[in-house]
């Protein structure tokens, strides 16, 4: 299974439009796909920390 391509497309566009680090969109994309696959060990904390490190407020 994979997440609807439209969501990924819009996610990438959004992060780009907001001039944020594209690594954020990559982390979110992986996260969505892992949720979709029903993966149990998502390492959410690592993902959150990585995003918070990159996000520019």
């Amino acid at each position, binding site marked *: 299974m994979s997440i*609807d391509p439209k969501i990924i497309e819009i996610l990438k566009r959004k*992060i780009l439009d907001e001039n944020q680090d594209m690594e954020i969109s990559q982390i*979110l994309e992986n996260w969505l796909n892992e949720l*979709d696959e029903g993966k149990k060990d998502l390492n959410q904390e690592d993902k*959150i920390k990585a995003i918070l490190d990159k996000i520019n407020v």
Partner: protein
Amino acid sequence: MSENINSVKITGWSYRGLNVPDYDINLSDPDSKRNFSLILQLSGQGKTTTLNLLRYSFYNFLDEIENKQTRKEAFDALNNKENPNEKGEFKLFIKLNNEINYTINLKFDFKDYKIEYFTIAGDGVGSDPGLNLPESLKDHISAEFIKKSFFNLELADELFDEQEKETDKTIINICKLYFLEKIGNAFDLYKKDFESKTGNLKVSNEELISFKHARDKIENQLNYVTKKENDFLEKRKMLKNELNSLNNEEKKIRQANNQINEKLTAAEEAIRDCENDLSDSFNNCYNFLKNPMKFSNEYFSLLNNFEKNLTKMGIPKSVGESFFSELIESEECLCGNHMNEKMKESINQNKLKFLTDETYNVLNPIKVKITQTTSVEKSEFDIVFKELTKKMGDLNKAKTKLSNVTKSFDQDRIVEIRDKKSEINQKIEPINEFIDNIINQKWQDTDTPNTESKKSLEKQLSNITKQIEEATDTVKLGKQIDLIKKYLSEIKKDSLDEISNSIIEKINIEVPRVLKYEPIFVKSIKNKITFKDRTGASQGQKVRITYLFLIALLNRSSLKFPFIVDSPATAIDDLSKEEVAKSLANYIDSQYIAFLLTPERDDFADVLDEELKKNINLIVAFPKNKYTENLIAQAKEFPDNTEIEKFTNGIVSYNRDFFYSFRGRSNKIRD
């Protein structure tokens, strides 16, 4: 076993001790390339029960029913009506990714209204308690997903109801846009955890604990109000469906009554026509009766003889007196009778009177009448009187018809429906008040966490969150998380809009074909489906648009999950049935199972059959009892692939000819 599940296919199921005969249904799938199955059943013989059992196989809806009475009713609906059982069993056989067999076993306890699940993974013999589907499937198989995948026509009403916002909810569920919220919630949990670990407190521990208690209280209340809102939304949807079905019934009765009005007028007119015809017949008969010459040959002969004698004798006016004097002397009267003394005396006494002009004027028309009256055949006389009898019969028939039409006017049911509707509307009223007003009330600084206004609770939560951020020195973290949540929310909204636009485009491409004679194009599916240049649509049009909506939506899902439909071709005309069937055959990627009644078969099953080049399971299933003896006899004519003796109380046939012959024969493709 790989967790990555791309497809789920149902390969069959079996019933034991339920409200459906104890038979097995097998959905053959040669080369894993057969996606379509049609199951023909009798009305009221387990279609809805099966649909619910299939739903329950993937999601335990029964356990979510808290109300005891409702729970009892849901269980009772599955139990055998004539001989209720204490226990019942349903088994569903599925195949994941076209290779892994799974059996889901549902054991019903009709005494205590309980359900137990067992799962057999793979081809093993041991079964594990519980509904143990692979994790990736569990995440997909939400209540909403199952409700949409197991579709009945109620959805056609919900998708057009602004209040329900069903289109958005459906897209969010099927396209899993809710994952974005899930990620946002993970950030909130991270923040809470971070706040509890940080050592940079700006307030005392007690004060922080008090803030956190306040936040917990608000969050709990928010969860309670959200649950209440969802329960109310579900209840309102159920009540509205009930209302819709009552409205449809009322409409049908009213339409029937309109026809009755027409029939009433026609019957009254028929009576008037019959009365006129009868009057004409009476006149015809009277014409016979008032001229004795016409209804008696004897009178006809006598009077003709009289006229002949009058003519022979001349009876000129000027010589009348001498004529009568001579007549007295005659041996024979004008009428041919022997002239006796009494007659002579009588003529003598009256001759002066007869001889007047007036007398002549009387005699002459009689003579004319006699000469003009022709002899009438008995058959002609009979015809006129038979016609009279017939017209009297016609009038009686017309009166009986009028009486029957009057009797068929179902006024009592209309009153009953109105009472029920008013009862439902009374139940909906407080729900609307809660959903439209109470939860949307504006925040006031005097509000407490006990309020039922979601707006107020959200504002209170935002305030206390800010206080905690300041107290724990996590303001920056709070801003970062707010920003990422804002992005996630905007991604969800934009995705919903763009997916909706793509669905609209796909629906509108299909419209000219599926709604050939009445093309209506979709303008928007925001909250509900609306049309270009028009406000509403007929039920049949709604059903077709609903199909197109679901086909476009379900095809977006990366998981190929069965699309199961109860009564797939009801409420649509023959041409639309054909076009819907073509859409299904050509555009559905997943497995399609439909339970249909015989009136839905023609122009639907045969079209699917043709489009799919016969790569379709055509199944007939019905109970075996004294009421179905004629059907059992029919089944015996098609013994190949027909299981007549295999099950004690039911028959299942996989014979194509029987499918098309069952209660009527289609002329379309066979073999």
